[in-house]
């Protein structure tokens, strides 16, 4: 969050005479092949990945609530059709779907547009597994005693859904949100390494990890592994958080 303050020169400034430099007092993690300060790029890239992955997760959770929650609440043909579509999306290999949709959009775009496209795409395509869980939860709520009682009291339709079903879906929505964040961080990293993620010169964990492609040995330039270490630490923290939540729920 403090990237602007810690690296005021920014992520795109080039030190042409110091390209591919090893870590020094001036450049803590050295410079890349274009002479850009790697430490600054890691800071800004971390900020982009850590801000936009939760934003994409929020979008996907909202879409899942809309598709899964509403169809589960309505039940019958609505739920069957929604789940058939969801199953179809779920059976598609995730990375195949992502690169296909990404390729449909222009690749030669401004860095800011590429950031938006990448994370919007993750949010708009990643709702399916959460929708399945929410459909099942909303379906079980629909037949619960308190909903029947509310129906008998004359509360129906959207009001019943917003006032009685939705508040009870909140724990499931929170869980699905936290599950989606590490998935989107990893997906962005995969897309970035494959050259289909955030466009240069904007850094993200995915685009920073592309530097590993030219390595000959792990010990050669260990500082290039810093983005990977950060990514693994963040994703494993999410995984540990989720498993401890699961243990507490059990």
């Amino acid at each position, binding site marked *: 969050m403090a990237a602007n303050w810690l690296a005021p020169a920014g992520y795109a400034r080039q030190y042409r005479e110091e390209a591919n430099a090893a870590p020094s007092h001036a450049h803590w993690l050295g410079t890349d092949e274009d002479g850009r300060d790697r430490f600054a790029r890691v800071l800004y890239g971390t900020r982009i990945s850590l801000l936009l992955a939760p934003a994409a997760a929020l979008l996907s959770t909202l879409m899942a609530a809309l598709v899964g929650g509403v169809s589960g609440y309505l039940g019958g043909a609505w739920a069957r059709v929604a789940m*058939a579509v969801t199953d*179809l999306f*779920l*059976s*598609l*290999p*995730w*990375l*195949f*779907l992502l*690169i*296909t949709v*990404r*390729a*449909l*959009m*222009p*690749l030669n775009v401004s860095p800011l547009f590429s950031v938006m496209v990448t994370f919007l795409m993750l949010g708009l395509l990643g709702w399916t597994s959460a929708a399945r869980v929410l459909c099942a939860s909303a379906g079980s709520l629909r037949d619960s005693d308190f909903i029947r009682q509310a129906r008998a009291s004359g509360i129906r339709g959207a009001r019943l859904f917003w006032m009685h079903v939705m508040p009870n879906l909140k724990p499931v929505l929170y869980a699905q949100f936290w599950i989606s964040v*590490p998935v989107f961080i*990893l997906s962005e*990293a*995969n897309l970035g*390494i*494959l*050259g*289909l993620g955030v466009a240069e010169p904007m850094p993200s964990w*995915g685009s920073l*990890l592309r530097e*590993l*492609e030219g*390595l*000959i*040995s*792990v010990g050669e330039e260990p500082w290039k592994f810093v983005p*990977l270490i950060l*990514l*693994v630490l963040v*994703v*494993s923290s999410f*995984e540990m958080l989720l498993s401890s939540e699961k243990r507490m729920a059990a």
Partner: protein
Amino acid sequence: MKRKLARRIAMHGLALVATVLLGGLLAAVLVRLAPGFDVDEQQLDSHLNAESIAALRAVRMQQNDVFSFYIHSLQRALHGDLGTSLSLGQPVSALLRQRAPLTLRLIGVGLLLSWSMALALALSAAWMRASAYDALTATISGMFLCFPAAVLALLSVLWNIPGSIVIALIVFPQIYRYARNLLAKAYVLPHIVTARAKGLSQLRIMTWHVVPVVAPALLAVAGVSVSMAVGAAIPVEALCGLAGVGQLAWQAALARDLPLLMNVTILVTAATLLANSGADVLSHALRGSHT
């Protein structure tokens, strides 16, 4: 029972055909609406005269109507003609024929290894019932879950690890996690607790009581694991320089070769749906035979 199974197979068959047809329509719409469809690089060739450019434009205009474009593509596909790749200039069907064997081998061996690793770890953890060993296996599999598939592929290039092993390392943590949960739930079932209380050997409990309970659910995961392995094939083939279907899809995406990419995606979708349907039918048949 047989009638139910036949109905299930028929439903899956219908779903598969509907998916391919609808997916094809969606693909045609997306290809048609994608930015740059109307522009043909050849139209900028200074060697062409006005008549030739007009002829090229006329050919493009014929593809303007999405439905006629789709019907035309479908008719050609039924005759085995999947069109021509814009970037590679070769028939898509020939490209797929060249590259499919490598991908099938890679995914096949990868799946075999991942299932062997996942089951070996999950069964040994369930067998030993030692919390330290359980935590160790969970940490090992959890560690691989935290790495992007593309990074594992890049590291495999550094250490000369075969692509099939990388696919196995990407897929096995997911299978392990599911298998471990299933086994943990199975071991607290009343009849298995009774069998343990009666002093039956671990091997007998595992083979006679635990495996029949978890097998149908594991079979259902087998279908999903095919999807995971196919997805993992893209970074592995692209970054390890293996000329398979995954690399073809990646190259098509980078070159915005939409006809090629759409055909590959539809075929991959059909293949994964077939695997999922097969696993679902087998799983139900197995459940039916136990009840």
